[in-house]
């Protein structure tokens, strides 16, 4: 159809500046990292080598860190999705006042306006043994002694979920807003209870938002550096921290580059499988 063709032409023109910026800034840097990771650095023009990759993938410590990064990212994605869906659903369906809704969106995106260092230290104060969370739990008698929420995996997940929550809330809310309320009415009219209506109509129709949100959260969690570094107190390592060490402290750019490429490839492959899988559902 010529109509669709015209749309495509307009769209591609609109996309052009963005694509140009990405190509200009991303391709040369990624290419140089890639090249740096597969050549020897002993002389000016090094010979190709897979040494860096073998070293990373053959070492239990490095592999363990990779798996740990993956696990933290997955758990964060699930937390951000669950929490984000609840918040988005509440904002779209329950909040009637426009002012309240705008204020709520502001609160949701607030973490993005704060420096990640300030935000992480804020969590350190709140999650510590004498922090507001533990004090509340103790005063309510929920626990008898402080729960360790900091300098461990839980703390990292809490911090990451907090900063990445806006991405799931906003993408899911945008999709929920688009769902015609009469579809839910039609489901109920045809005999579906509220829960069944949600499971058979609302949830499937909001999946595009769920997919978009989880992709953003997962990729950002995989590459997060500051939040895991501060909230784990340096006791836990994620791959971005290893990369940073190689580039800044050890000066082994080849090895750092190899780790970056593995992280990038793994993220791309996983998100690819995920989107492919959801498309077939």
């Amino acid at each position, binding site marked *: 159809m010529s109509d669709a063709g015209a749309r495509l032409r307009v769209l591609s023109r609109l996309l052009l500046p963005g694509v140009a910026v990405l190509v200009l800034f991303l391709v040369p840097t990624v290419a140089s990292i890639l090249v740096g990771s597969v050549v020897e650095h002993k002389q000016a023009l090094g010979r190709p080598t897979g040494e860096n990759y073998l070293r990373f993938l053959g070492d239990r410590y490095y592999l363990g860190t990779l798996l740990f990064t993956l696990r933290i990212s997955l758990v964060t994605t699930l937390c951000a999705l669950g929490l984000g869906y609840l918040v988005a659903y509440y904002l779209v369906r329950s909040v009637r006042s426009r002012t309240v809704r705008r204020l709520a969106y502001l609160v949701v995106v607030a973490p993005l306006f704060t420096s990640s260092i300030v935000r992480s230290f804020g969590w350190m104060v709140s999650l510590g043994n004498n922090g507001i969370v533990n004090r509340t739990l103790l005063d309510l008698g929920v626990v008898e002694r402080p729960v360790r929420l900091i300098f461990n995996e839980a703390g990292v997940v809490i911090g990451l979920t907090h900063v990445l929550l806006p991405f799931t809330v906003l993408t899911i809310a945008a999709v929920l807003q688009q769902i*015609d309320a*009469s*579809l839910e009415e039609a*489901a109920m*009219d*045809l*005999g579906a209870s509220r829960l069944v209506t949600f499971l058979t109509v609302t949830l*499937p129709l909001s999946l595009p938002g769920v997919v978009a949100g989880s992709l953003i959260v997962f990729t950002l969690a995989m590459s997060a550096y500051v939040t895991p570094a501060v909230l784990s107190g340096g006791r836990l390592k994620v791959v971005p921290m290893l990369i940073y060490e190689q580039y800044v402290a050890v000066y082994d750019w080849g090895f750092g580059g190899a780790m970056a490429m593995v992280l990038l490839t793994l993220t791309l492959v996983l998100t690819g499988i995920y989107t492919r899988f959801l498309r077939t559902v």
Partner: protein
Amino acid sequence: MSADAADVRLAHVTKRFGAHTAVDDVSLEVRPGEFVSLLGPSGCGKTTTLRILAGFLEPTAGEVSIGGQPMRGIPPYRRPVNMVFQHYALFPHLTVADNIAYGPRRRGVGKAEIARGVAESLELVSLQGLGHRYPRELSGGQQQRVALARALVNRPRVLLLDEPLGALDLKLRRQMQMELKRLQEYLRITSIYVTHDQEEALVLSDRIAVMNAGRVEQMDAARAVYERPATPFVADFIGQTNLLACTVEAIEGPRLRLRCGGLPLLAALPALAPAPGTRVQLSLRPERIALHAERPALDNAFRATVSRRVYLGVLTNFHVTVAAELALVLTTSDQSLAARIEPSSQPWIGWNAGEERLL
């Protein structure tokens, strides 16, 4: 009518939204198998009434019963009704067959029976073989049929239709009207149809409830609503009419002498004769006024001035003024006569007493 004879009964139903009263003390009954239209301008409360029946809204006051069962507190998913929505509300993520099977699945109907029901419903709306398509792959008219099939497959006690043809073009709309009528007569399903299109209501309905400002102004058979409107609103809303403000002057045998905007008129004496001096409204349909080249021998005959002639294909409308003060609209289907009567010419118009209706 006893309570059991009615499939749907609304008793003094009122719905308020804050200070606004959307439905104001509406009482009506729909018999089994009957096709009733709720007709009125937008904001008259017809859709709100339908949504109360479907269970999406609870009435502020009054009682609703369906099939003899009181409906207060019963959620939409437990009511023996199904609705066809204004913009179809088909589930975009499900195929046509799955859309139709949605209701039976919720009721736990067996697989084989669902398949049979889906096939039957598709055939009923002449969409055989399109079950595997998605709603977006269908035309507006086809989507409309799917919406109808999705409701009918459940064999609801009452079918609710919320301006279901509103989004279709005129030709398709006429066609769907006939098809809907055929289906409804074939299935003998009690139907309540919301529309603002008076012609559609006349074509489809056994009875029409004309609504205005949250109230039912008149509920009657289509012919009665058109020919014997109970209120000025009904007379004006159903079809076109000339509404004249008149004063009763005298009773002359079987006739009533009126003065309408300075013009003396003769009207038939109604059963309840108004006393001289009473103010009445007179409704005179455009097609009841005849056009003549010479003075006609009719009870009411006047020389009129044509201010505008509107050609409508089958009919021609004339906007005329009588005695420079009374503006009337009249219609003729005699196109050769209409062609001879030019704007600003002065033909005779006339009608006999009894063609009008006093309100």
